[in-house]
């Protein structure tokens, strides 16, 4: 499973836990739209830290950077480019 597919699946499970089974695209907003809350953001942060080695204390945390699949892709690219 590639990185984005893994993140997509993770988000799908988070949404399902909230009873949200609506489809989403790579540009769908999760947090700013209210589909996911800050508790879910924490779980996503932990995944990104553990699976992709992102240190948010270093790169700075902004919820909009993880608000959609596209935003997460950009975040991963910028972190990898900086390494």
């Amino acid at each position: 499973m590639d990185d984005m597919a893994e993140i997509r699946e993770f988000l799908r499970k988070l949404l399902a836990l909230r009873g949200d089974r609506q489809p989403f695209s790579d540009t769908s907003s999760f947090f700013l739209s209210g589909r996911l809350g800050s508790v879910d953001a924490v779980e996503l942060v932990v995944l990104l830290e553990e699976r992709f080695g992102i240190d948010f204390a270093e790169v700075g945390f902004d919820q909009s950077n993880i608000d959609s699949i596209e935003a997460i892709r950009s975040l991963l690219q910028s972190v990898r480019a900086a390494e």
Partner: protein
Amino acid sequence: MSVALGATPEPGVPQSSGRLARFRLIPRVETYPKIVAFSQTIAGKLVLLALFGLGLSYYGDDWQLTIACLALIAFLPSRRRMLVTFSTLLSAFVFQWKNSSHPLYFIVIISLVCVLGGLLFWSAVLRPRSWFGRRPILFLLCGYAAFVVFASYFPRGSRYYQLIWDFTYILTTYVWFIGYSLLDRNAPDRDDFGLQLGTYRPFWGSTNTPFVKGAGYLRRIEARDAEQLAVTQLKGLKLLVWSILLSLFLDAFNRCIYVSLRFPTIPNALYLSANHRPLPWYACWASLIAQFFYQIISLSVLGHRIVACCRMAGFNALRNTYRPLSSRTVAEFFNRYFFYFKELLVDFFFYPTFLRYFKKHRKLRLIAAIFAAACFGNAFFHFARDLDFIQNLGLARALAGYQVYLFYCAVLAAAISISQLRHRGPAQTGFIRGQLWPSFLVALFYCLLDVFGSSDRSFPLTEHFRFFAQLFHFTL
């Protein structure tokens, strides 16, 4: 990145397909293509503004200025953010002019606080690698706390005593807004300070809690085209109508519960309890439950009105209060009851702790972050908000009298921690086991916690425990 406007769910809303869930007291006019199309025309905008003005006039306070600002923004959407700043400054100054005995004096102090916000913002932007640039929020909050301590020990008879305290009061009303602009310092699409200023107690209304967060949030929820603007404004109008309906209900609730049925208020019940003339246990419950519902409805009225104005200005903000009684966990209630206060605690206390400390210990990390937000942050916010206690009682006595609310914060943080650490599995099925019972338990928890939810320092913690015991027919 745009937010789907048409079907934006509210905070933590499970997608339900039941007939009851689909029922709408106010029709979803933002989904009717003809109405959306009409709302984009000049005549449509005028009708929307007229209806919105009519709704705002129900509340009676400064609605003419607000609707004038909204009209300006509605007809010049390309200048929206700049006009928000203009309207915010205008409304702040007009408010002082109309309501203050020394308007110029307070306008100067407000200007000084805004200049301070600007200096901090530019310092953080221009020197990102400096100690301040890396930890501006810590600097802001520590500096603010130090200033409150300084004010509390300033000699009472001194010439500058009143000036120091007036500055502290105004700074308190702006400190979290300045904080949000500092949080925006590293954003790639960061606004300059002129636009940040528009989020400092914006013209659509706010408490000390920033409604609706800061410039970073506004950029992302702003309507991008005429159709999104029309949909957002229609949602704003709907929310204002809902706010008015709730307000009417609240009036009826007050008349029925507190006038006709003469339910005691919690302060009255506590007073009688402290004077060894306790009310019967059922009367204690009645006062507690009545207050619980009163608080939810009154916060909904306030939040809906503010968010409605924000939406009317073209920002698709989430509601502040959204069906809190349907919450199935303690954490979910906190999110649904006062969304923007919860966001403040999360942004300023939870994430900084979570992302920095105990990273190797998953549970401890979460608990520490929850206590930083729901306990320390919550207590800090309310202690600083109620400055008159510090001014009148002195810092030490104000802190000692704060024991009741500190206890409230500690219990709340512990309950949220437990709620978050429990395994998050699929929800129980069935209406009673899956929804009604968990929601009842959550509401009961918050209702009981409200016994300790007072920050007015009237009675010590022991008196609150005495009242709590009376609910269960015990006498302490």
